[in-house]
C-alpha cells in the first residue's frame, strides 16, 4: 500500500498506540552559506508512529542521515519543529537534549562503534553507566540483554574477537539496555553480508519493536526492506513517498 505525502501518515498497526513518536513539521536544514550553501532537508513534514519499524530509504545525499540526526537530537534544524516522544526538541537547550538522548533514545551505528577496550557485556552496559548505574548491576543487566540477542556465550569477548554480525548484535543490546522509547539505527546492515544483515534486521524487529517504542532505520539495503512496517523514501532533501507495508512483511 502506498500513501501520498499529503495523506495522513499515521496508520497504526494493531499493537501501536494512537500518538506519533516523532513529528516533524516543515523541517529544513541548511549547511554552509552563500555559494557553498546546501539544503540537506527541505520542508520535511512526517510523523512516525510508536510500535513500528520505519525504514528511511533513498539515494546517497538525499538527506536520510541529516533527517535521522535531527530526529535523534544530534543536529538542530534550520527551520521547522521537531517533536520526539512528546518533547519539542527545537525548544530544548543543549544539556537537556543530551540528557534526553541518554535516557530515551537508543543508537545503532553503521560501524558499531564499540569501545575496543571493553568486553561485549561492558560495551552493552555503557548507556547504563552514562545514566549513573553501578557498574556491576549495569553489566548484569547488559549480560541479560546480550543473552536475548544470542550472545550469552560471548559476554567476555572483546570487539576484535567478534564477527561483524556479532558486533552489531552487541550494538543492538547496547542500544536497548536502558529501555529507550526511540531506537535510531544508521545503516545497521551496511557492513554485513546478506545473511548476517537479515539476521540483524530480524533481531531488531524481534527485540526492539514494542507498542511503546518506535524504531527508525536508515538503510540502503533493499534486501531488508521487507522488515519495515513503513518505508519513507527521500529524495533531494524531501520526503518523496511513504509506504505502509502492513501485511506485506514476513511473519
Amino acid at each position, binding site marked *: 500500500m502506498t500513501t501520498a505525502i499529503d495523506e495522513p501518515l499515521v496508520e497504526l498497526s494493531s499493537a501501536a498506540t494512537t500518538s506519533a513518536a516523532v513529528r516533524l513539521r516543515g523541517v529544513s536544514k541548511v549547511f554552509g552559506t552563500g555559494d557553498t550553501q546546501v539544503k540537506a532537508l527541505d520542508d520535511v513534514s512526517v510523523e512516525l508512529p510508536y510500535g513500528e519499524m520505519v525504514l528511511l530509504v533513498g539515494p546517497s545525499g538525499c538527506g536520510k542521515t541529516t533527517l535521522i540526526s535531527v530526529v535523534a537530537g544530534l543536529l538542530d534544524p534550520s527551520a521547522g519543529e521537531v517533536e520526539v516522544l512528546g518533547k519539542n526538541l527545537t525548544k530544548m537547550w543543549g544539556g537537556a537534549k543530551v540528557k534526553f538522548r541518554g535516557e530515551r533514545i537508543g543508537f545503532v551505528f553503521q560501524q558499531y562503534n564499540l569501545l575496543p*577496550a571493553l568486553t561485549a557485556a561492558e560495551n552493552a552496559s555503557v548507556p547504563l553507566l552514562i545514566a549513573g548505574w553501578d557498574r556491576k548491576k549495569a553489566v548484569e543487566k547488559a549480560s541479560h540483554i546480550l543473552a536475548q540477542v544470542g550472545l550469552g556465550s560471548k559476554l567476555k569477548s572483546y570487539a576484535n574477537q567478534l564477527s561483524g554480525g556479532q558486533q552489531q548484535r552487541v550494538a543492538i543490546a547496547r542500544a536497548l539496555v536502558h529501555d529507550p522509547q526511540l531506537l535510531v539505527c544508521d545503516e545497521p546492515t551496511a557492513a554485513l553480508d546478506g545473511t548476517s544483515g537479515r539476521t540483524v534486521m530480524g533481531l531488531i524487529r524481534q527485540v526492539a519493536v514494542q507498542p511503546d517504542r518506535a524504531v527508525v532505520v536508515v538503510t540502503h539495503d533493499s534486501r531488508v526492506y521487507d522488515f519495515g512496517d513503513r518505508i519513507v523514501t527521500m529524495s533531494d532533501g524531501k520526503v518523496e513517498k511513504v509506504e505502509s507495508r502492513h501485511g506485506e512483511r514476513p511473519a
Partner: protein
Amino acid sequence: MFWVALRMLTGDRAKYLGIVFGVSFAALLMGQQMAIFCGLMRNTTSQIRDVEGADVWVMDRSVQFVDDVKPMSDNKLLRVRGVEGVAWAVKLYKGLGKAKLADGNYQQVILLGLDYDNKDGAGRVVGQPREDRIVVGRWEDLDQPDAVFLDEFGWRYMFGQEIPFEPGRSLEINNKRANIVGLVKCNPTFQTFPILYTKFASAIQYAPPEPKTLPFILVKSQDGITPEEVCERIEESTGLRAKTNNQFFWMTIDYYLKRTGIPINFGITVTLGFVVGCAIAGQTFYLFTLENLKQFGSLKAMGVSNLRIVGMVMLQALVVGVIGYGLGIGGAAGFGVVFEKFVKTAPSAFYFGWQIPAITAGAVFLIITVSALMSLKKLLFLEAGVVFR
C-alpha cells in the same frame, strides 16, 4: 564513566605506554638535569657550608664569590675585632697550592688555613667542619708540626689504591712537607680539587708568597645581636664587605648564575626535556583521541555531556601524568643514588631538594594539560552527529 575512560586509555597498550614514556622521559630529563645543576651550584658553596662556628664572613669589598680570593692586610682583623657586637674574629686562609705526589706528579689542592679563637682562652681552631665529620684523627692533631687534614674524597683521589687511611703519609707543597694526620668528610667542591686543612701559619707557608695573606675573616656575633646587624656594623666601620653564611652562599651562587654559561646550558637541556615531553606525550595523546573520535562521538550521541568528556580526558591525562611523573622522577632520584653509591672517584654534583620534584611536577602538569587541551579542542567541537557520517 571514569572507569570507561581508564579502560579506553589502557586498552591501547602501545599508545598508553607511549604517552607514559613521553611524560616519564620529560620528568627524568628535567628532574635529573635540574638536580645536577642545583648540585653543581651548591658545590660552589661547599667551603661556606663546611665552616662551623662562625656566622659572618668578612672580605675585601671587591670579592664576588667564595673562590674570588682577594687578600687583605692583617690589620683589618684588628679593625673587625674592634667593631661592637663582634664576639670573636679569626683569620681564614683560602687559596690554591700545588702538591707533589710520591710518583712525581703534581695535584692542585685547596688550602684552608685555620686560626685560633683565643678570646675565651680555649685556643681551638675555628672554621673547620664539624667534629662528627672527622673520619680519622682529631683537630688537635693540627698542632703537630707540618700537620694537615685531608678531605676523604681527596685522599681517595690522590691515594685511591692505598685505602684505608694510614697516618704518616705526606705531601710536598711549595717545597714544604705536609704530614697528613687525619681525614675529614667535606661537602663536594665545584673544582673537585682535594682540600687540605691546616693552621693559618702553615697555610701561608704552603701558598705562593704574596704581600697580603688574609683572604677572609670569620666572625661570631655576640649573643642578642643578629649576624645581619653585625654585618652592617662591620661594613660601616671598616669599609669591608661582610656577609652572613646564608648571604655569602647566595652571593656565590648568584655569581655563577650571572657570570657563567652553566644556567643557560642546563636551562636549554631542561627546556628540551619539557618540549620533547610535550611533543611525545601531546602528539600521542592527540593521536589516541583522534583514533577514538568515533567512540567519543558515540558516547556524546548516547548522552555523555561535554563536561563529562572533559572529566574523562582530564582523568586520562592525570593518570598518565602521575605514572609518568613517578617513573621519571624516580629514575632521576635513582640516578643520583646510583652515582653516589658506585662512583667514588668523582664528587657528587646532585642535589635533590623538594623543589626539584615540585618544579618537575609543575612542568609535567603543564605537559599533560597541554596534551589534554589539544585533545579536548577536538572533542568539544566534535558534533555528536559525526557518528552518522
